[in-house]
């Protein structure tokens, strides 16, 4: 009898304590998917990966946010590409693409212009006019002296010409302008009075200097004449940085057909400088600004391979610039990573990139534009430890 009691007691205790009181919540996922599941992941933390086996054992929630995990469907795609720039692939259904509003466009060669904004004013520069006057008269007296032939006078006149020329150079005129002046022997009256063409003095900063070249197009819009625009070209750049404003003055000559531009008017200036690649080509392969996902670490463009297949491509691009051909839009010149005629995603690329992080077939070193660096390899960090169960 005691035996029975003992057995009964043992059974009772084992039953009561053998099963854990606390257990994981097992949420049924109603995805209703027939496709093969590769693993489970969290929508907010795609680096979480749970194997199907563990999922079925009850590991059904994201460890971080505790939300139900979602299945990732095995993709038929495989990363068989030798292109090291391809970093991820993702396949999407047409309905999903439509819902995500994905838009693509072929990349073309374009003429791009870099746009620099600057402020300036319509020149009212009596000093320069005077200097020009001085220069012209010094040139004239030099020419006279030449005809006179007295060496001493010629020399003096020459040095007068030189000094007034240097003055002009310092005031920002280019050698060509000075040469022109020397020929025309006409003081530019539009420096002080409204004319058909007006001088614009603008200031650009040191960091922009590379982009401001003589001959660059300028668009001028006076603050006081809202909506009106005047066009011209950069003619010369001051050789000296102004210590007061930390900027460099440039001169542009713009058309002023109705003489609306008046000296001393404040104007906004846009300098359009054409982009050239390293070989000096003006036609450059370029992608729309919206096609580029930039993380600082890498720049990614999603390429439409057709049939709902997309490929993430690491690219190198040049500075942002504008194509003025039809509707002015912003582009990046592509330096590396894309070929002409490929279709790039210009809308919905963030969503595609996210999807690639959640379910895409990624090459080993990639986890999406906004994702994290790849895991550090475990094996190399801790090589062959004896007695460890792997």
């Amino acid at each position, binding site marked *: 009898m005691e035996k*029975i009691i003992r057995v009964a007691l043992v059974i009772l205790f084992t039953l009561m304590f053998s099963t854990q009181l606390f*257990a994981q919540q097992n949420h049924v996922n109603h995805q209703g998917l027939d496709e093969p599941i590769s693993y489970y992941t969290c929508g907010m933390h795609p680096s979480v990966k749970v194997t199907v086996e563990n999922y079925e054992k009850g*590991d059904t929630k994201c460890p971080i946010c505790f939300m139900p995990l979602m299945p990732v469907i095995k993709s038929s795609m495989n990363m068989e590409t030798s292109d090291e720039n391809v970093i991820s692939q993702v396949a999407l259904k047409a309905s999903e693409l439509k819902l995500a509003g994905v838009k693509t466009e072929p990349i073309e060669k374009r003429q791009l212009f870099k746009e620099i904004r600057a402020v300036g004013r319509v020149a009212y520069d009596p000093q320069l006019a005077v200097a020009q006057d001085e220069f012209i008269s010094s040139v004239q007296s030099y020419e006279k002296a030449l005809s006179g032939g007295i060496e001493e006078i010629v020399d003096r006149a020459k040095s007068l010409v030189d000094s007034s020329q240097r003055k002009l150079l310092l005031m920002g005129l280019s050698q060509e302008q000075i040469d022109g002046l020397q020929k025309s022997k006409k003081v530019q009256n539009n420096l002080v009075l409204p004319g058909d063409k007006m001088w614009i003095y603008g200031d650009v900063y040191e960091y922009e200097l590379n982009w401001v070249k003589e001959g660059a197009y300028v668009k001028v819009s006076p603050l006081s004449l809202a909506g009106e625009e005047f066009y011209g070209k950069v003619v010369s750049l001051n050789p000296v940085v102004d210590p007061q*404003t930390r900027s460099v003055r440039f001169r542009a000559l713009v058309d002023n057909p109705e003489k609306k531009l008046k000296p001393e008017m404040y104007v906004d200036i846009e300098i359009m400088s054409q982009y050239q690649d390293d070989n000096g080509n003006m036609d450059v392969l370029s992608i729309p600004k919206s096609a580029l996902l930039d993380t600082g670490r890498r720049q990614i463009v999603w390429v439409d391979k057709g049939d709902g297949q997309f490929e993430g491509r690491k690219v190198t691009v040049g500075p942002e610039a504008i194509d003025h051909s039809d509707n002015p839009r912003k582009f990046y010149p592509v330096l590396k990573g894309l070929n002409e005629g490929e279709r790039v995603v210009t809308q919905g690329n963030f969503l595609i990139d996210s999807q690639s992080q959640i379910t895409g077939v990624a090459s080993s070193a990639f986890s999406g534009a906004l994702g994290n660096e790849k895991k550090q390899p475990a094996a190399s960090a801790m090589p062959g430890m004896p007695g460890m169960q792997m």
Partner: protein
Amino acid sequence: MINRIIETCIRNRFLVLSVFVLMMILGFSSMKETPVDAIPDIGELQVIVYADWPGRSPQDVEDQVIYPLTTGLMGTPKVKVVRSSSGFGFGLVNMIFREGTDYYWARTRVLERLDLAKKNIPKDVSVSLGPDATALGQIFWYTVEGDGYSLEELRSIQDWYVRYQLTSVEGVSEVASVGGYVKQYQVDVDPNKLFAYDVSLLHVMEAIKLSNIDVGAKVFEQNSVEYVVRGLGFIKSIKDIEDIVIGVHAGTPVTIKDIGRVALGADFRRGVLDKEGREATGGVVVMRYGENPLKVIERVKKKIQEIEVGLPKGMKIVPFYDRTGLIHRSIHTLSSALIQEIIITIFVIVVFLLHFWGSLVIAAVLPIGILIAFIFMKQFGVDANIMSLGGIAIAIGVMVDSGCVMVENIYSKLSEHSTENLTSENRLKICSDAAGEVGRPVLFALLTTIVSFIPVFVLTGQAGKLFSPLAYTKTFVMVAAAIIALTLLPTLSYFALKGKLKPVEENKTAKYLHGKYKPLLGWALIHKRVIVFIALAVFTVGLIFSVLMKQEFMPPLNEGDLLFMPVLLPGASLTQVADVMQKQDIIIKNEIPEVEGVVGKLGRAETATDPAPVTMIETIIHLKNKKYWRKGMTREKIIDEIQQKTKMPGVSPIMTQPIRNRIDMLATGIQTPVGIKVFGPDLKEIEKIGIQLEQIVGRVEGAVSPYAERIGGRPYFEIEIDRPQAARYGIHVQDIQDLIMSGIGGMNITTTVEGRERYPVRVRYLRELRDDPEALKRIFVPTRWHWRNAPKPAQIPLAQLAEFKTVAGPSMIFSENTVPYGRVFINVNQSQIGLVDFVKKAQETVQKEISRGNLKIPTGYFISWSGQFEAEMESRKRLLPSMALALMVILVLLYMAFKDIKILGILTAVLPLSLTGGVILLFLLNFRFSTAVWVGFIALFGVATDNAVVLLSTLENLFKEKLPKTIEEIRQTVIRAGLQRVRPALMTTMTTIIALMPVMFSSGTGSEVMKPMAAPTVGGLLTATAANLILVPVLYSWMKERKLQKEQS
């Protein structure tokens, strides 16, 4: 003692009756006043400190606000842990208090500390205490709608009219606005013009600040009249701002309109509301802690009716989430189950007792008992919800047991006399004697039930919060039932059991039962081995099933409404997420016919109880009544269809429920069974250590997918100031930062006062001049010192002062007790290794790696182990002793009753069999093991042995009366005892089992939580009854027979 009480009661019948009538009235009023909610509040007791610092990055918020704040808040009394998180533009400090701390006391302590802590943080941070509400506080959501009104107008009405009126409703803690646009005066400055007019952005801001004030100047008297003097200068219109003068340039005043444009626009927003594809604006009513949600919603609705009159024409307030529906549904499920239970119980009693008035007396226990339980609930602060009412529901069958025993005994004693001839004094005597006889067993049964619930009382954490209401109410009704049985029932019996009472033997039900039971028991006594074998077989089956069963923490409650929660990866912009939300809402509304309404929210409502990031959409889907669903549609199918139809790349369609989600959102800490927290100053280093730990722990046996949190994920655009460069131009870092803040980010510099309404005035650069990296380079910083003798300071573009870079950074920074941490989450295969053992092993492994030098923990860093295993260890620490204690107490009680260790052995043999029945039924019904199931088992535990106890005491009595001399005599005596007890035994079990049938067959809201709790009792009592009526007599007879054989040989 008990007999004296009974006698006193029966002699003071009028007094007893009046007391009970009074109690019923009191109970009724308590019932009306008890707060009613759907589920108990299972969140931690936390006080949230909310810091708002618009536009700042998580890193800035952490370094400059949250860290100084938490250091100041540390050491608040009764605080368990201080957790904090820093997000974009805001930070939260969650002060978790020890359970049992008074909520308002805790808030006051936090406030005291906060006062000091605030001194160390930047002045423009607004720090406040979160609302005095918990996760369950968001009870009512509404939109403010009106055709022809802009989102700004709707939001203004919501902010300045609706919100404050609704906040005034009693029981409302806060009304938070969400969605739409906050009206804002926007001064968009053109830096080129600043340059041209030679003024800086700081001048502009200063000028606006100085141009917005009304003043008072006391009074003056004139002709005996007193005039109040006011100086008027508040900004009231765009023009007022345009005309503000900044400075004088070459003799002409420079005003705001010269350097930029002023317009009405929308303030920066971190939340969008969308109703069926159209952007909307609305609010959420947050209920105060401890209030009655039903009442509060009722009052809110009444207030809405009142204030709707004052809304502009065509505008209206439309609710889209209303907790009342859910509460009503779940209460309805339970109350209808309760009513059905009561009716069925009465019916069962009538069948067994075959005396109408007598049955009614027993049935009286139910309503009176429940009403008394409500008095207790009110006193102990137990709210009405599906758990607490469920406690009553599963107790109904057991409640009447004591009544049954009492009335049955009085009945049989009375029926022994011919009632017509009894004087009332004699009847009184018989009644009180009969009641006295069973008084002790009634108390004993009560004690075992209460004792068996001790383990439920000691549960801590979520489980404790969830199930203790149930344990309380069950105990309350049991106590109430016992009180009624001992005091009221004898009195009522005295009145009710009159006239001719048929002797028990003539009762038709009894006769029928005896006819069936006698041969069965007779056969069983001969084939004892077969019976024991069957018992063992059943037990084995149960054991196998118990291993096969899956586990879960808690069966999810069907809330009715769905919460569709698509999330995008961190870094998604508000515009992108809003676009996703709009498209999905349109599809859900138009393509799923079962959907009544859909309102999506992205980001945060402006309350501390909503920390959702912009990348998270929370769409409340209100389904139509089931009758209007397509044929064959189920909730699961609808969920599936929604997820399929709204599928978008990069969007994860999570489906959850509103209340559940709110509780999850406010929970902090680690939710996996095991977690490692890596503490330290640098997030990068933390991440590195975490990833190493992930790999080390992954090799420990039983570890399932360990995962170290990755910190990056959100793109940051960093402007790093080049100090030597800045020095070259004579510019302070602050000069640059001010410009970054106001020029790029825009700053609300002052607030207009327009009657009741207030709107911010913001200064910022023109949009196209600051919304891409190229434009940012041209933000001008004026030099502080003039160059040589220059007449004005130079303006230096940012590109020459700083380096620009895009980096990946944290989207959220978490810290605990002031130290930032990263988490490693570990799930554990618990069939392979116990949690506590796993942790021990994992800790050893990690320690080994550290000592070997494979894992380097730099100075200032440390790791700590945490997770749900702590709760389990805590539970184990409490649960094991308490369960052992409960068992001990029960065994001692049993031993005291019988003073025989062998009988105790027989009783303990029956217990596992009753558990087995529960397991088998659970398995057949495809339930999982959950805490709810365990509570069900504990409930079963308390009643399973009751019948065996009674039967054994009858056996003992009969054997004492006349000791049998032969085996045959033993068997006859055993059969006699069995026949005596079969009717009451079956009566009590049948009431319990049948009473639970309405719960088992109900399908309404809340039934999914109740069913697993009822199932063990139903299944368990079936096997327990079989065991009690067959196995117990068999074992007893076996015992006696062996004793006899021993004596004879």
